[in-house]
């Protein structure tokens, strides 16, 4: 046995302190505030308060980790004992992270992910362990070395060498990312927060002032078009600022170091993270450009590997960022340097002109037509035709926007395959170029109907080892010749 058996540091149970111990804290506050009588009178609810802390404690007490030359063994379970063995060769990423509490006590959380975590057993095969600094780094080396002593020594030597970061990103880069990235969710939440919360606070501070009248008065200063434009600009700026603040805190001091066998990614202000991505376990990368990024020639790069950037970190969904923001040609140069077994050419075979008609057979087109027909039908036949011209005008505008979006989608579609990578390009106003290692593709599915098949077009879906979110990438309405090319390189 090279390590363990051990439970690790007890601090692990306080990892999600607010989530797990929130009710206990609330109980404590109520007891202090209202006195113990109210608690004693409601004893039946006490069990609810302590369920989560007790389950976390039991899980900690009855889970032991050990590592030998070949595998990691996890013994767990209170009543039903379970032994899980994970071969070290199956481990894809090993990452260290520290939240504020862990930083105070110099404890690191180790999270090891393995290939089985794309399927239903993802939670069962999770390895989460908290250890003191020296132990944590030893276990990380051990897991990365796959039990090979020689390799472990090599890794140690490599660790001792000071690796120069190949990618560094400062706060200004993330602010730029926040501005250029279209983040609808942030914009909506900011809008609701500002207009909901803002008016509420304003009404408390200035009780005499009627906030809705004030907004109305302000909006009346401008013509409707200018008013809407100002409103959109304000909402966009607020959305971009909030997005930038969140991103800067999460990805503070972001660096990527290039080791022979792995990429080491470090970042974080309050919660510091350190990921080691084995290069041979990387399935692919995607280069993303929002519409503003395309205008200014910028892009961001995400990487596909189990354990990095999926939702396995509870509610803290992280992007699988490799290069947050950079000029497109700079990204090409760096990617070729750090992932030499892939190719990042962009010689796409664009979708053929004849295939344009099939792009119109999409959900959004049918949805828009359905809404328009329903709206006109309702207003003409059932509700009178008072607003028919307005409805027709809006319907025409929506239809035109949808047609343009479909045409742009056709223009951006493309695919190519060679022995190193299969690459798919798609997008409407933004653009995504996905590069998947050919030897990581596990299945190729094509979906077509008789009519489309006769004309020689089909839609390809590639299945590969990656977090569920991205493990099925589609190329729409490509020719059968292109499908044959993909099948050919995959079987080779």
């Amino acid at each position: 046995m090279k390590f363990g058996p051990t439970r690790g540091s007890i601090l692990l149970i306080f990892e999600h302190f607010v989530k797990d111990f929130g009710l206990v804290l609330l109980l404590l506050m109520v007891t202090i505030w209202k006195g113990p009588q109210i608690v004693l009178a409601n004893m039946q609810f006490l069990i609810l308060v302590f369920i989560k802390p007790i389950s976390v404690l039991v899980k900690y007490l009855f889970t032991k980790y050990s590592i030998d030359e070949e595998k990691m063994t996890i013994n767990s379970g209170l009543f039903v004992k379970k032994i899980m063995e994970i071969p070290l060769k199956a481990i894809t990423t090993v990452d260290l992270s520290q939240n504020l509490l862990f930083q105070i006590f110099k404890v690191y959380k180790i999270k090891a992910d393995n290939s089985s975590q794309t399927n239903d057993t993802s939670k069962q095969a999770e390895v989460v362990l908290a250890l003191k600094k020296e132990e944590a780094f030893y276990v990380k080396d051990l897991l990365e070395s796959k039990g090979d002593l020689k390799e472990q020594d090599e890794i140690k030597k490599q660790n001792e060498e000071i690796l120069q970061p190949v990618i560094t990103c400062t706060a200004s880069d993330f602010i730029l990312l926040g501005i250029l990235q279209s983040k609808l969710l942030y914009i909506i939440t900011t809008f609701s927060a500002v207009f909901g919360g803002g008016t509420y606070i304003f009404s408390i501070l200035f009780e005499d002032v009627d906030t809705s009248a004030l907004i109305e008065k302000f909006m009346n200063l401008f013509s409707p078009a200018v008013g809407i434009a100002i409103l959109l600009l304000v909402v966009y700026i607020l959305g971009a600022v909030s997005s930038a603040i969140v991103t800067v805190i999460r990805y503070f001091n972001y660096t990527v170091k290039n080791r022979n066998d792995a990429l080491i990614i470090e970042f974080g202000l309050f919660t510091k993270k350190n990921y080691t991505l084995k290069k041979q376990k990387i399935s692919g990368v995607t280069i993303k450009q929002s519409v503003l990024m395309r205008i200014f020639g910028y892009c961001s790069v995400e990487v596909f590997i189990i354990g990095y950037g999926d939702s396995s970190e509870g509610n803290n969904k992280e992007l699988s960022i490799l290069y947050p923001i950079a000029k497109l040609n700079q990204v090409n140069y760096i990617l070729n340097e750090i992932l030499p077994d892939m190719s990042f050419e962009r010689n796409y075979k664009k979708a053929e002109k004849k295939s344009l008609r099939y792009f119109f057979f999409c959900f959004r087109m049918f949805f828009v037509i359905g809404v328009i027909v329903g709206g006109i039908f309702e207003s003409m036949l059932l509700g009178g035709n008072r607003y028919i011209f307005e409805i027709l005008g809006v319907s025409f505008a929506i239809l035109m926007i949808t047609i343009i979006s479909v045409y742009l989608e056709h223009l951006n579609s493309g695919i190519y395959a060679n022995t190193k990578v299969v690459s798919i390009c798609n997008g409407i106003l933004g653009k995504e170029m996905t590069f998947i290692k050919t030897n990581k593709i596990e299945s190729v599915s094509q979906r077509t109907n008789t009519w489309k098949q006769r004309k020689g077009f089909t839609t390809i879906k590639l299945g590969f080892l990656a977090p569920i979110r991205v493990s099925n990438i589609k190329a729409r309405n490509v020719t059968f010749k292109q499908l044959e090319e993909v099948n050919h390189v995959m079987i080779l």
Partner: protein
Amino acid sequence: MNYEKLDEKAVLSWRIRRSISFLFIFITVGGVLLILNNADLENKYKNYIFIAAGLLLLYKLIGIILYPIIEYQQWRYAITEDKVEIRHGIFFITTTVIPIIRVQHITISRGPIYRKLGLSAVKIFLASGSFEIVGLSENNANVISENLKSRVMERLNKE
């Protein structure tokens, strides 16, 4: 490529399964419509709901009578030296190619309807997902499973 077809009993198995589902939906929708009929709702909306419910039930009924025949004609599979190819669908035909070197494990499953009809389904698991060949005769399923297992073992021995 020489494609194999499914066992003819597959049509009957789909019909039985879809009939059970139809019965369940019929009872649920019927119950909801009965409540709605007595509810205080505008006739206009009631009509919409009745039309939608009628269309749903009609679609499900076609699913029992017509779709199994089309589905049976479209279902094909082929297992060669290096790949498994599965082709199925009703209006949209999906063809999947799986390199045998990517197969992780295989399972044979028989539900109550399949057991009664002497059928089996072979499920092929990859690290990134799974694919199924349904409506096979038990004997055929065992042959396919053994064939794929031996290929997987060959690959593991090479590794």
